């Protein structure tokens, strides 16, 4: 069922939803960008449609809603301890098709990998209702079509913001009552069908080629270019890595918490073990590790599809202008070289 609602009506619906839902959407934070007088767009709770940024890609991904950068796991008081709690409300998230695909990719790690379900992710995941934002962007950093993440039917509502009003497709009947009496108008969301940027997905035929690719000189370029800041993995809509830390709040150590914080395989120290061993000690090695995870390792493990969804946020956020699509092109060339050498 489709509707057309004015911003005023939509805000009314938001208000009605708010007793049951937290509404999260990409929001503009003026002046909060990396450079002065630049903005940042990231997910936050919203109360009105006007707060939502429809016409630009968010700098940071939707994953921050389900798996916050810093998340408490347990609270400790002397010898007592309990699990952290989450909001009692359900969560409505405005996401583009690539963002929705990214959640599916994260779910495979958080839920099920190794037979374990991450309770902290699962309890959030169960609360989520997706509002799909029709994506009419074609930023030259986008390559969702190449990654097959341009289309989705995993949503409760679909919206497009046009001429100062929202067109809404109500797919999940739970939400039908909120739209009673609103102007009916046919609306089926459209999806991106072509991007300016296209990526040829690399095929690594076997372990021998993979091993040679790992030590291929192509990665050395990043020893000089990459500053290992981790901006790409923080911006990545699919990266899930975290580190667990225990802290004591007070001097006598009787009260504290166990929390987890997003971690980045690009930052030095990611593999450091107590006792001194560490692995992947160059920026090039770390870059290789990340790129292969997104375009080989993940699919090798979980089958079906690659981890990267082509949202391009890693490209936009890289302060050193390293492009993942250019990197994949280089990787394609390296693979072709290795395969040609093997066939000699």
């Amino acid at each position, binding site marked *: 069922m489709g509707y057309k609602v004015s911003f005023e009506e939509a805000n009314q619906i938001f208000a009605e939803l708010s007793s049951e839902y937290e509404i999260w959407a990409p929001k503009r*934070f003026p*002046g*909060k960008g*990396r*450079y*002065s*007088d630049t903005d*940042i767009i*990231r997910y936050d709770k919203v109360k009105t449609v006007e707060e939502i940024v429809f016409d630009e890609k968010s*700098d*940071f991904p939707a994953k921050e809603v389900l798996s*916050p*950068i*810093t998340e408490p796991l347990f609270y400790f008081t002397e010898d007592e301890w309990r699990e952290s709690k989450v909001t009692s409300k359900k969560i409505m998230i405005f996401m583009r098709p690539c963002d929705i695909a990214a959640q599916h990719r994260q779910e495979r790690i958080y839920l099920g990998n190794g037979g374990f379900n991450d309770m902290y992710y699962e309890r959030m995941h169960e609360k989520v209702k997706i509002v799909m934002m029709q994506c009419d962007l074609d930023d030259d950093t986008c390559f969702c079509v190449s990654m097959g993440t341009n289309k989705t039917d995993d949503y409760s509502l679909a919206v497009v913001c046009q001429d100062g009003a929202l067109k809404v497709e109500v797919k999940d009947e739970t939400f039908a009552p909120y739209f009673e009496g609103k102007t009916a108008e046919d609306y089926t969301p459209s999806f991106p069908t072509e991007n300016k940027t296209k990526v040829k997905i690399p095929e690594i035929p076997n372990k021998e080629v993979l091993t040679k690719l790992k030590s291929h000189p192509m990665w050395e370029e990043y020893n000089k270019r990459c500053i290992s*800041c*981790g*901006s790409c993995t*923080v911006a990545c809509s699919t990266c899930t890595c975290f*580190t667990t*830390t225990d*802290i004591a709040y007070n001097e006598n150590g009787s009260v504290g918490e166990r929390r987890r*914080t*997003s*971690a*980045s395989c690009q*930052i030095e120290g990611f593999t450091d073990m107590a006792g001194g061993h560490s692995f992947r000690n160059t920026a090039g090695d770390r870059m290789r590790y990340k790129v292969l995870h997104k375009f080989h390792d993940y699919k090798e493990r979980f089958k079906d599809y690659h981890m990267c969804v082509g949202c391009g946020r890693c490209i936009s*956020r890289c*302060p050193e202008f390293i492009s993942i699509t250019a990197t994949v092109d280089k990787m394609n060339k390296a693979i072709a070289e290795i395969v040609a050498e093997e066939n000699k």
Partner: protein
Amino acid sequence: MNHDIDVKKTRINCFRQSKVPGEFMLQLRVPGALIDAKHLSLVQELCQTYGNGTFHIGMRQTLNVPGIKYENIPAVNAKIKEYIQDVDVEMCDCDMEADDKGYPTIGARNVMACIGNSHCIKANANTHELAKKIEKLIFPSHYHIKVSVAGCPNDCAKGNFNDFGVMGIFKMVYDANRCIGCGACAKACLHHATGVLSLNDHGKIDKDTCCCVGCGECVIACPTGGWTRGNTHLYRVTLGGRTGKQYPRMGKLFLNWVTEDVVLGMFANWQKFSAWVMDYKPEYLHGGHLIDRAGYMKFKEMILDGVELNPEAKVADELYWTEAEQRANIHVKPISQHHKAGPQ
């Protein structure tokens, strides 16, 4: 050659005497060091038609035309009417009219600026915009003042060697929840700034707020947007810097964390202060010497008269100048030769 020229008059008209008898160099003001590139054709024409065919980039970011014959000064002044109209009257909204007589005074020197945040990734301030507002307050005036505006405390604009150095800063805001404990901000602060940040054993950042210079290196380095700039553009102002054959010295921190309103309020008092020091008789005397004559306390009282300080603002209680005298004991002289401030 038999010349009868009032060189003081030509100097006030912004034509500097050449060692070649009868020749002068025009200095065109470029407040904030940024103008429409179209003006370059005028400069080229002046150099080739009236000058000696060369062009000099002024030390205070003026556009200099060397080798103008004295008799051509009226023709040159007629030619630059449109430039003065465009740049000082229109761009800076100065209280003056452009006519055929050229610049009315050389007193307040060209307001210098680095490129600022219209381009520079490190800058916190739009130096050009601020310089234009300062130009309006200090020009035209016969009272001498040298001002430079820098986008950040790195001070590429050399405000530290001007009577007033204005540098863009911010109070930085730390969101511990967005912090992944990578330590990039602490490294950047130590490497580029004052080393006020450290990673604590909770995996978060401690800050020695007292010694922060407000430069924003932490924001630039942060991969997560955990560090952001505060909502208000702030400035630090250094005072009394100068070069010279007698007492070169670096400026001293005068105002810290002040708003643009405070900066402009201060400049609005400059003419009143200068007039008082010289008993309302403008003479060719560098602005810094006026501060010396009045003494810091009197200067502070007059320059901040009626200026409403913002809550974060800090003002130097006392200034302890350190000078590098070009000749030992140059400052030690009979009392009768000492300069005097106020009614003479």
